[in-house]
Structures are given as C-alpha cells and as structure tokens.
C-alpha cells in the first residue's frame, strides 16, 4: 500500500514535471514579454539588455531548470502586467475559485448522484425520462449561454440574485471566504449553478449507466436471489459498486471544474483564477499563465491522489494485494 501511494506520488511528480515543461515550452512562443515590458519604443540594445536581465538569452534547458526550481518553491516571478508576485496574485484568487468550484462540485454530486440512481432504478418512468432529457440539454448547452441566461432571468428580470462578483467576504488569515455572509452566499448562487449544471448532468449520466451495468452483474442477481430488500440491494450493494468507477471520472471532472470556471468567472466577473488567466492570455502574461497551468495540474494530481486513496478505502481488493489491481 505504501508502494502504491509512493508510485502514485512518483507518477504525480512525472506528470507535474511534464506539465511544467509543456507550460514552459508553450509560453516560450506566446507573445513577447520584452515588447510588452519595454513598450513599443524600445531600442535594440535595451531589448538585448532586458533579455539578458530576464535570462531569456540563456539556453533553453537552463531556463527550464530555473523555471522548475522556482516553480517548486511556488515562485513564478512577477506578473508582467500587474507587477505583483504571481504567487500572491494566485493565492488571492484561489479562494474564490476554490469556493466556487467546491460549491459547484457539491451541487453536482449532491443532485447528480441521486438523479442518476433514480434514472437507473426507475428506468422508463416519466421522471427518469425527463431527467435524461434535461441532462442532454445540460451537455448540449454551452456554459456561457447558461450563465448569460441565468443573469438575464434571475438578476435583471427577477432581481433575486446579484449579477456579478463575490459580494461581501470575510478574511480568515490569507483566505477570503464568502461562506460566512448571507451576501456571499447570494452571490454564489448563480455562478455555482452555472458551473454545476454541466458537471451535474455528466455525473448523472455516468451514475446511471454505471448503475445499470452494476445492476446486471451476477452478485446483484445473487443478492436478489437471497431475498435481500431492494433498498439493501440498490443502496447497499449496487450504489457502492457504482461509485468506484464514478469516483475516478468525477475526480477528473472536478479538476476540470476549476478550468471550466474560466468561463463562469468571465461571465459573472467572479474574481477567481480563471479570470486572472483569461486576462493573462490576452496580455501574454507568461508568468501567470505558467503558474496557473502548474497549479491546475497540481490540483488535478492532488484530486487524483485523493481519489486513489478513496479507492483504497472503498475497494478491499486493492488494499492487500497493494500493487496492481486486477
């Protein structure tokens, strides 16, 4: 088991280094920070000087080495545009995105799983058909469309919820939270909903199809043959087995939530990392983009690690044999 965790960690490190490399590689080619820093009226010698100062004249791998060493320390330099430490900018923005993604994830799971279970167990009923149709709509509607429509209806026409921003936040150390005020929650509703809808439908469809698979297995049939109650079969046996594969996929999806937040944040002016990233892309703010990418993959890796550990907790087959599952 230790070996299992270690191996996952090792893989995580490899993934991270690869991501860092890609990030670094890509940003070598996006825009030219020198032009941006010096403005348009730079003379060639100034440009050369700045290149030297920034270390942009060094061999590729030396640059990458520096990048890695700094990245490990969370150090991505200063934002080219904002002149502030990237790590601080991200740290400021992280709570907003995290809280948004968290609420969206909880929404997606808390609504998606029961809906999926229902749709699987009551296949063919009107309600489950309706769920399926809705879920289709959910995957067919682009997120930004949902966001715009929600604002139009609930903020402008009905005036129930605010249309932008995080509202009042409280400071807990370096963490700002909107969870402690009513205003914060009100502001969270529309963006979280927007972000959750797509994931929700995915979770629902996934749970449904996995559940249907599990319901066809021999051990469910055998459980029926033993005369267990439907409750015990569906929620004791089937659901737990369903959740094993669902876990992996939702894990991946949750990582995706953070990235999908780009669009939601854009629409709702949610002061999170996604908004920062989009701005950074517009202005070729390389350090921010690099740091964002690395952070995203770190989150992804962490989530995956957690999912793996959950696996260990849920599936006894992995616990003892440790190594490869079957």
């Amino acid at each position, binding site marked *: 088991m230790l070996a299992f965790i270690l191996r996952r960690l090792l*893989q995580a490190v490899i*993934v991270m280094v690869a991501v860092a490399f890609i990030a670094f590689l890509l940003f070598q*080619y*996006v825009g030219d920070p020198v032009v941006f820093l010096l403005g348009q009226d730079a003379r060639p010698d100034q440009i050369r000087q700045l290149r030297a100062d920034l270390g942009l004249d060094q061999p590729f791998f030396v640059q990458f080495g520096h990048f890695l060493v700094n990245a490990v320390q969370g150090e991505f330099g200063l934002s080219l545009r904002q002149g502030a430490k990237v790590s601080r900018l991200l740290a400021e923005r992280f709570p907003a995105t995290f809280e948004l993604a968290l609420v969206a994830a909880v929404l997606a799971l808390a609504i998606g799983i029961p809906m999926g279970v229902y749709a699987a167990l009551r296949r063919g009923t009107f309600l489950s058909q309706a769920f399926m149709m809705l879920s289709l709509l959910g995957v067919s509607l682009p997120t930004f469309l949902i966001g715009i429509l929600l604002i139009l209806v609930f903020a402008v026409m009905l005036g129930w919820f605010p249309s932008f921003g995080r509202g009042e936040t409280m400071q807990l150390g370096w963490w700002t939270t909107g969870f402690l005020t009513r205003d914060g929650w009100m502001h969270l509703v529309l963006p979280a909903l927007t972000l959750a809808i797509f994931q929700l439908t995915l979770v629902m469809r996934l749970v449904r199809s996995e559940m249907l698979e599990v319901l066809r297995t021999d051990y469910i049939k055998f459980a029926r043959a033993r005369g267990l109650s439907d409750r015990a079969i569906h929620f004791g046996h089937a659901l737990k087995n369903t959740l094993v594969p669902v876990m992996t996929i939702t894990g991946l999806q949750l990582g995706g939530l953070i990235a999908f937040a780009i669009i939601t944040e854009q629409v709702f002016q949610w002061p999170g990392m996604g908004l920062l990233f*989009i701005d950074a*892309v517009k202005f070729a703010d390389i350090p921010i983009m690099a740091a964002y990418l690395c952070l995203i993959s770190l989150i992804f890796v962490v989530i995956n690690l957690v999912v793996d550990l959950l696996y260990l907790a849920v599936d006894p087959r992995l616990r003892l044999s440790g190594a490869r599952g079957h």
Partner: protein
Amino acid sequence: MKRTLARWFDSDIGYSFRTSPVAMVAAVIAFGCVFCATFANWVAPHNPFDLTTLVLSDARLPPAWSPEGSARYLLGTDDQGRDILSVLMFGARISLAVGLVSVLLSMVVGVAVGLLAGFVGGWVDGFLMRLCDVMLSFPAILVALLIAGVGRALFPNAPNTVAFGVLILSISMTGWVQYARTVRGSTMVERGKEYVQAARVTGVAPMRIMWRHVLPNVTGPVLVLATIQVATAIITEATLSFLGVGVPPTQPSLGTLIRVGSDYLGSGEWWIFFFPGLMLVLVAMSVNLLGDWLRDALNPRLQ
C-alpha cells in the same frame, strides 16, 4: 446500395433504430442540419460570407413575422446585415466541419495510440498512458486557449483559414486521450482473445493483426465516443469563440454568432442570439442523442 441499405435496416442496429423514435427524430434533425450546412450555398437564401451582398442598413432587422421585419429575411438579420437563416446554415457548416474534422483527427490519433499501447504493452503502454494523464490534467478549454494563443503567436501572419486549423488542432489535442484510453482497454481485452492468438500461430505479423483483427473489434466504443465528441467539439468551438479565440468574424460559426448575439440580448434584438443558440443546442442534442442511442444499440448486453 439499395441492398446494403435494406440490409442495414434489417440488421440489429437498424432494428433498434427503427424502434427508437428518439433516435429517428434525432437523426432527422441531425441530418437536416448536416444537409443545410453542407449545401448551404444552394439552400440558403443569401450568402452571408459574400460581403458584396450585405447591406449594412439592413442590420438588426427582426424576424419576418414581427412588424418591422422584412420578408427578405425570414429570421431577421444580425448586426452586419447578414440574414440569420443563411448565416445559421453557413455557421453550422463551420461548426460541423470543425467538429467533424477535429473528432476525426483525435480519433485517428487516439485509436492509433490506444492500439499501440494496448497491443504492445510494456513501457510503451506506460509511457503513452502517462502522456494521456498529462493531457488529461489540461482541461479541453484550457488547452484550446493555449493552442489558439500559441498558434496565433507562431503564425501571426497566417491567413484566416489557419484559425480553423488552430481550432481543430486544439480540440483534437484533448479529444484523442479518450479514444486512446478506450481503445487501449478494448485492445487489451481483444489481444487476449483466442482469435488473435490463432492469427499469431498462423504467423500473421503483429501490425497486421492489430490492423485487421483488433481494430474492427474496437470500433463500437470508438463510434459512440465519436458521436458524443462531435457535440462536445461543437460546444467547445462555440465556447472558444465566446472567449474570443474562435474563427474569423467574417465567417462566423454558431459560437461566434451566439457571442455576437449575446451582446444584443439586453437591447431587445433577441433573434441574433436566439436562433444560433437554438441551432447549437439542436445540433448538439441530436448528435448526443444519436450517440446515446448508438451506445445502447451497440451494447450487446442491452440487446
């Protein structure tokens, strides 16, 4: 042709198709969209990509049935005076083309990688799957943004059409992973089957086995994935257009149209937004439905 069609209609899939009204409706819608898109040049009342035919003063006319509407423009016009109905067809053509081509591309790459990983195994498999992990940690939108950015930076002078290439590439970049994983899984299963061993005993070369034996047997899940991904790709393209890294504005896709339209949502010109949105949802939904149906139809356990 007629016979193969008849045979298809008679086959299991054909049967499950005939008995699924949802699939039929979806197919009709999808086919309608594809038809209008493909033959937009002939079907559409105007050619919105031909700037000479546009009349700026006709901009933002409401649909024909409203009082200010003009009969010339059934669904009204957009902010450049383009006929919405025509631009829908042309836009759908771009969206569909981007969707189809990018799915095709990711399919080819993904299937090749998946086959290789599944069939060869060992460190090749390990390496390719780690690669997939890396790709997975970049969500599609993100990669698309990056590639779009890089593409523009690398080829700043490329003609407009390169934007399509960039879009397609960026959507494919994340798309292939799913194929690779699915195909790898199926390949590992197929590889162990006795018919593959029989071919090996006969002395058939591994590549040939992969190509002739294994590949046809993993097409089912690939097909299902593909349909669903077409929808995803169309939506991704729309989202990218929304974020401002889509196709050129003179040749708008559905996504570009929606983004443009959303600017006018508040000012009462709802039709600029509504019809493209409806079309996008219709296309995505019908393709999704087809994919769902195909998944069930190809699942032997559900037959």
